[in-house]
């Protein structure tokens, strides 16, 4: 099924979207962008499934289950955020934080994961949360539909590698993303994996010209994985999740900031290296 999807996508991707004065031939980007769209659609599929289980737990009033499913559901979204953010309205209703609203958590337009996080982890209750659960589910369905019909702009895909590291630098390192659940490291790993995926897909296009660049990126990705591994709930298995962010030592917080900043800086040149406008 994946193969047929890939063929279809490759055919559908118009070269017009790649008309950049490229340092690499525009055709060279077709395969990576196609692969990336598959990656995004796979993650969206999983995201929808997990969100369904999560929102059903909320609606069923099963607090413990809802709490347990919160972080694992978000990971898929965090991986594909550069694409999700192309739909600003949905990004806001799915993933906005209370800081985005003047009246904070009391703001009637504040919805999505972080509104539910406040209820589940701060108020420790599912009371009144079903309306937010319903809305989240319908927003996520909407997102999946919209992404399926989307032609991926190469500059958004390639720029996404750096954008994900900017996300980490801005809100994950400080522990303010998931301030009630303290599940920031799940999101951190999600952003990191999403960034790595993009880089891996375009790596063959830059490897020959600048092997040192590739080495710097890979060693910093590895440094982040190593530090995050200190906080796996199940040693060596990120998929089982992470300890809460308040457990992260001051030393490790600093050990995370360095590579994140280097990656944000280095990956910000990726579009230029590929000649994307």
């Amino acid at each position, binding site marked *: 099924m994946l193969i047929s999807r890939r063929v279809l996508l490759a055919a559908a991707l118009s070269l017009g979207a790649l008309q950049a004065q490229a340092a690499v031939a525009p055709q060279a980007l077709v395969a990576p962008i196609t692969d990336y769209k598959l990656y995004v659609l796979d993650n969206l599929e999983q995201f929808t499934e997990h969100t369904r289980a999560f929102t059903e737990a909320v609606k069923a009033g099963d607090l413990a289950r809802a709490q347990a499913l919160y972080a694992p559901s978000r990971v898929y979204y965090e991986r594909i955020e550069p694409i999700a953010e192309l739909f600003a309205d949905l990004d806001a209703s799915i993933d906005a934080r209370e800081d985005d609203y003047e009246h904070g958590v009391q703001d009637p337009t504040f919805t999505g994961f972080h509104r539910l996080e406040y209820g589940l982890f701060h108020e420790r209750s599912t009371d009144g949360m079903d309306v937010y659960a319903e809305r989240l589910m319908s927003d996520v369905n909407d997102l999946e539909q919209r992404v399926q019909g989307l032609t991926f702009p190469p500059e958004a895909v390639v720029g996404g590698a750096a954008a994900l590291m900017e996300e980490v630098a801005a809100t994950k390192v400080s522990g303010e993303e998931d301030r009630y659940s303290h599940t920031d490291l799940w999101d951190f790993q999600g952003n990191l994996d999403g960034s790595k995926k993009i880089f891996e897909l375009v790596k063959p296009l830059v490897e020959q010209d600048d092997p040192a660049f590739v080495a710097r990126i890979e060693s*910093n990705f590895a440094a982040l994985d190593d530090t995050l591994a200190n906080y796996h709930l199940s040693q060596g298995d990120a998929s089982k999740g992470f300890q809460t962010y308040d457990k992260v030592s001051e030393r490790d917080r600093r050990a995370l*900031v*360095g*590579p994140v*900043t280097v990656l944000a*800086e280095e990956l*910000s*040149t990726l*579009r*230029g290296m590929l000649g994307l406008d």
Partner: protein
Amino acid sequence: MSKHDTSSQGCPFAGLDRRRFLQGLGAAGAGIAAAGLSGGALASQPARAAEVADAPTSATTGQAYPWHGAHQQGITTPRPAVGMLVAFDVLARDRAGLEQLLRILSERIDFLTRGGSYEQRDPRYPPVDSGILGPTIDPDGLTITLSVGASLFDERFGLAEVKPRHLERMTAFPNDALDAARCHGDISLQFCANSEGTTIHALRDIIKNTPGLLMVRWKQEGSVPVMAPRPDGQTESARNFLGFRDGTANPPADDRTLMQQLVWVGRNNAEPAWAHNGSYQAVRLIRNFVERWDRTPLQEQEAIFGRRRDSGSPMHGGVEHDLPQYAGDPDGSVTPLDSHIRLANPRTHGSERNLILRRPFNYSNGVEANGQLDMGLLFIAYQADLQAGFITVQQRLDGEPLEEYIKPVGGGYFFTLPGVQAGDFLGGGMLAAADAIREA
């Protein structure tokens, strides 16, 4: 509306021939009209009237201080209008990373304080520079002074053996309410320049060039009020946010012998040889309760400081730089014994070795939850001996009446590295000294 008004909309000189009026006023008047720092440019370039959003002009953007020398700049260099102290955590993990950082900092400071043009890059890449001063930058009197905190000498970089003798982590004095988020740091950078754009540009340049090596821990910006030059050529100390002159009792920075004794670490200080020509930097963020101060009778304010507010003179009158006479005032009936200046500098035999070189700026940060202004003093002082200098002076001040109006909330102790010669980098001597001990 008359024809004339139309051509001078929004101008305070509406109805006049604007150009002739400004020429008549001379440079000072033009400066006011252009909201400039020094003016002059407007009158000589009559082609286009000044617009609202025109950049204010300054005649001192070309001012530059030499980068090479025995000492770093920014200590005995005259204090300009704008200052900023930024404390960083070093993210480099080993000695090699630290050396890389020190070399990059040296190279950036050299460039930024000299000025010049940035490399123009393919526009598909992020630009090399923030661009906030345009493609070519002027030095604008910029100095950047690098100092190191006690934490840099922990196990990470192998420097424990070469730590300056008095360098320690700042501990709270009785009146302090230290905010952990605004204290200490592995290194500090003091930026001083004629305008804020220059210090901010320099900070952003340094952050851009040190990813993975440095992380900002806290920062405090400040300024001092700019004054018109006096007709008699005399200078006066700038005022703090309590309205009093600050730094009157500073030892004269052009007295090299005195600076050698009081500010620069030398042979007499029993410090590691690499530290010679360095200095201890004491930084304190001292909040001022200005609303309450402004509701305090003037005579009480003056008794608290021990000076006349408006002139800055001693309590017995005269002018700012007249020396306070304590010999005939043993009971403090003229200058109270617990006044700020008398406690800080009692002018007794031996107290001259406690003199420090103050280089403070006023800061204004915003509003507290109670609606009161969050402002105060970014206190920076240099001395050859931190213990004999700031720490002793502050201990004498503990419990002073001024404490009712001030609250130290942050800061730290740092050691300002010696200057650099051509081909060297800041901290090179420190690393070499540590290497030599390791190899021995």
